[in-house]
């Protein structure tokens, strides 16, 4: 199975949505009174989801879903309304105008909001990335023959995604992309697994089959008896996917300026003078072009926002509302001030030297279910998952029975961080809660000394 025709782009469908959205936005903006301000956001997708278990199809289907969120501001008060966007202007216009009217009734009942940010025109943008994706009917024949006889489990998600923004100051943003993500595990009889993702805008059958072959080769390494490792402190290598899990925690009460100001950040000590490892540099990098740079207020983030440079906290993520409340400068962060396109810069550890430099310790491909065990102390707990190994004197000995860790980022991203790999991997964001996510992170591997495992 190497020849699979790819589907024509769904450019026409996206063009129809863009046209309808703009007409609907014009209609809403035309209704505004002199003291009213409005921002209008669109998020939509036309998705094919195929869920796989043991090389078979568990569920398969299509979801066409889009919604609009409008925010009305008047007399120092603000409220929002969200409603479906069907793409049928006659239908959507009635609902939109009705919701605008509801907001006008609600607004006087709300207290004044001292931190309201009025819409501004920061400049407009239009980005559209056409893809070459499989049609839904083609997917089984493209994916499944290559994985027969192995325990292949996961999800294939594909189709166009749209984010757009208009406001009463005249700003217009449109971001559309056609993309797929295959997120899968090849599972060994020991129940250990090779976890991998394949993501892009053009389906490449040959590339897919080559990746599966590579995963199958890795699977053979897991076909050894599982070793039980006692809790304790070990030298530990975190592969890029595991690094992404650790760094991702900083989007949850970490790099947010609001959380820093309100006692909810794990990085408060960095502002008080502590620092992390000089090996560590973390930034938001929108040059990767995977997510829109505009946020829900229409602000456009700088192409790069350095957060940690050589272990020093140099910026937090700040949106305009936080900026107004705490008299700091906005850098166009999202409403929740989490990272949208994080990158950790590489170090000097060559891929071929990872096992030798690790010596004796743990090689962790993936982590699972991280949480703060003491947020203000920067302590994170979580589990090892999938392909994790015990290594002795630079040689993989055996896959391990999963371990629980509990350690402080001030330690494992501080003095215990020995090096980072000299290459990075792109770890796509595969979340599909409510809607498919965009983007991902660019991460190297981490070599850490004396990482703490507790159970």
């Amino acid at each position: 199975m190497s020849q699979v025709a790819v589907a024509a782009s769904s450019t026409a469908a996206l063009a129809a949505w863009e046209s309808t959205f703009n007409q609907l936005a014009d209609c809403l903006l035309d209704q505004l009174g002199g003291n009213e301000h409005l921002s209008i956001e669109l998020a939509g997708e036309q998705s094919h989801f195929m869920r796989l278990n043991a090389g078979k199809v568990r569920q398969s289907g299509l979801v066409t879903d889009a919604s609009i969120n409008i925010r009305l501001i008047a007399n120092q008060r603000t409220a929002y309304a969200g409603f479906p966007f069907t793409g049928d202007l006659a239908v959507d216009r009635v609902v939109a105008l009705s919701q605008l009217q509801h907001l006008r009734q609600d607004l006087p009942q709300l207290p004044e909001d001292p931190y309201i940010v009025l819409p501004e025109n920061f400049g407009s943008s239009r980005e559209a990335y056409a893809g070459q994706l499989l049609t839904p009917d083609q997917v089984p024949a493209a994916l499944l023959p290559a994985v027969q006889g192995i325990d292949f489990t996961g999800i294939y998600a594909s189709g166009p995604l749209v984010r757009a923004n208009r406001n009463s100051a005249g700003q217009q943003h449109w971001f559309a992309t056609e993309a797929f993500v295959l997120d899968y595990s090849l599972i060994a009889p020991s129940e250990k697994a090779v976890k991998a993702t394949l993501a892009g805008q053009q389906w490449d059958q040959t590339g897919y089959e080559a990746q599966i072959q590579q995963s199958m080769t890795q699977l053979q390494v897991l076909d050894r008896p599982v070793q039980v490792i006692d809790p304790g402190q070990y030298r530990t290598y975190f592969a890029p996917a595991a690094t992404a899990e650790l760094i991702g925690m900083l989007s949850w009460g970490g790099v947010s300026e609001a959380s820093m100001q309100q006692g909810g950040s794990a990085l408060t000590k960095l502002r008080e003078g502590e620092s992390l490892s000089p090996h560590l540099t973390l930034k938001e990098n929108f040059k990767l072009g995977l997510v829109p740079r505009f946020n829900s207020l229409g602000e456009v983030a700088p192409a790069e926002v350095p957060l940690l440079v050589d272990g020093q906290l140099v910026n937090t993520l700040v949106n305009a509302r936080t900026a107004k409340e705490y008299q700091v400068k906005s850098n166009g962060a999202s409403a929740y001030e989490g990272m949208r396109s994080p990158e950790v810069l590489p170090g000097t550890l060559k891929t071929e030297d990872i096992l030798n430099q690790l010596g004796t310790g743990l090689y962790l491909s993936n982590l699972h279910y991280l949480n703060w065990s003491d947020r203000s102390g920067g302590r994170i707990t979580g589990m090892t998952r999938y392909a994790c190994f015990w290594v002795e004197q630079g040689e993989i000995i055996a896959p391990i029975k999963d371990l629980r860790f509990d350690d402080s980022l001030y330690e494992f991203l501080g003095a215990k961080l020995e090096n980072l790999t000299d290459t990075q991997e792109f770890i796509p964001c595969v979340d599909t809660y409510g809607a498919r996510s965009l983007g991902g992170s660019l991460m190297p591997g981490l070599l850490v000394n004396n990482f703490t495992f507790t159970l």
Partner: protein
Amino acid sequence: MKFDLHQALNQLNLDADWVGLRQVNETTTTHAVRDGRPESNGRSITQGVMVEVLAQGQFGYAATNHLDQASLQSAAEQAYQQAIATSNWAIHSFTPDVRPKAVGQYQSPFQQPLDLISVADQLDLLVQVCDTLHVSDQIVKTSAFTQTLETEQNFVSSNGSDTHQNFGFVITDYGATAQDGSVIQKRTDNGPLARCYQAGSEVFDPEQVLARAQQVGEQAIALLAAEDCPTTTTNLVLAPDQMMLQIHESVGHPLELDRILGDERNYAGSSFVKLSDFGQLVYGSPLMNITFDPTVPGEFAGYAFDDAGMPAQREYLIKAGLLLRGLGSLESQARAKVPGVANLRARSWNRAPIDRMANLNLEPGQSTFAEMISSIESGIYMEANRSWSIDDYRNKFQFGCEYARLIENGKLTKVLRNPNYRGVTNQFWGNLAQVGDRSTFEMYGTPYCGKGEPNQCIRVGHASPTCVFNNIEVFGGAA
């Protein structure tokens, strides 16, 4: 104009073995106030139809938010094509038996309608909550959040199903963050978003709400001066607002049949439970009785029918510590050949249903709270979840709580901060030593149980008495 689901079904032109249309209309109204100032206020509406088609033993689905006949016909054809295109690769060949005919209605219980309270009154109450939480200048942040959801779900099918379920959900969350130098402690109203109910505006009774807010603020301040939870192995007493998390993570998820069947291994994970364990495995001590019960009035995940049309009823999953039944729908029961429950549920119209928890409860025992505490010479009492993590087989867990008290010589003594505990599921439940009586029984829930590919957050309810566990590792925060 109201969309006629029956007419839409009747006008579909499709040669399938079974067709079902599930329509969801949901309005979510959110009010959030921080430090007495409005933070986020508004409402969101979602509506759409999920078309499920069974053809050649395989289900296909297509969902649309455009409610007209042409869009429904197109969705039905897409769903049919997906069923046909994947039928040769299907994990199981299903029959219409997994979508039994269901006819009936459901209405969430409530004492006062949700729209009885105006937006202005709602905001006024939330500002008062913030003021009440602010018991001291050491309170550096107060927050008050309410969310109400009005959900209408209709289901019709080619084999005569016709159900209409109306839900009213209320979620509240009030919290205070206290700070003294580098010590920061947060206390909430039974844990973040734990107060989730099917109810009406009676939930916003100001007297009760403000009394709770006062206690939350005072306990946040008390935590600032408290000692850290000691590191030791001891008797652990868990309040119902932490038991809900313990039940959810270490009983609910491992008993989901789709996890045991492997569907979730690439995402949420698998389970230490095997299909052969049903009827055989001693899950916990003889005091452990777990029920699946969507019929409990007011509990968050009540319903009359699941999304397959199976009537909901109370079932014992674990009785006297013995595992009897899994959390598996008719689809999973057909695949696994073990008994299950009515739990095929989707988050909304845009997701296909899978095995979920609903209301999953620990049944009350015989001990009063005073009897339990007085029987313990040395131990720790913990309330309200703040941290949760468990492995993908649901064995090794570590949970943290907001607030704890030391138990010395049969009495609650010092307040302790940063309380955590860890364990392994089967051993932990085997150490269940006392189960509180109905006077200790409380009901909570969460809107954010995550699972599935594509991902779905779903509402679940958990009720439990206070419980005592022996020989548990407890510990405190970072040095």
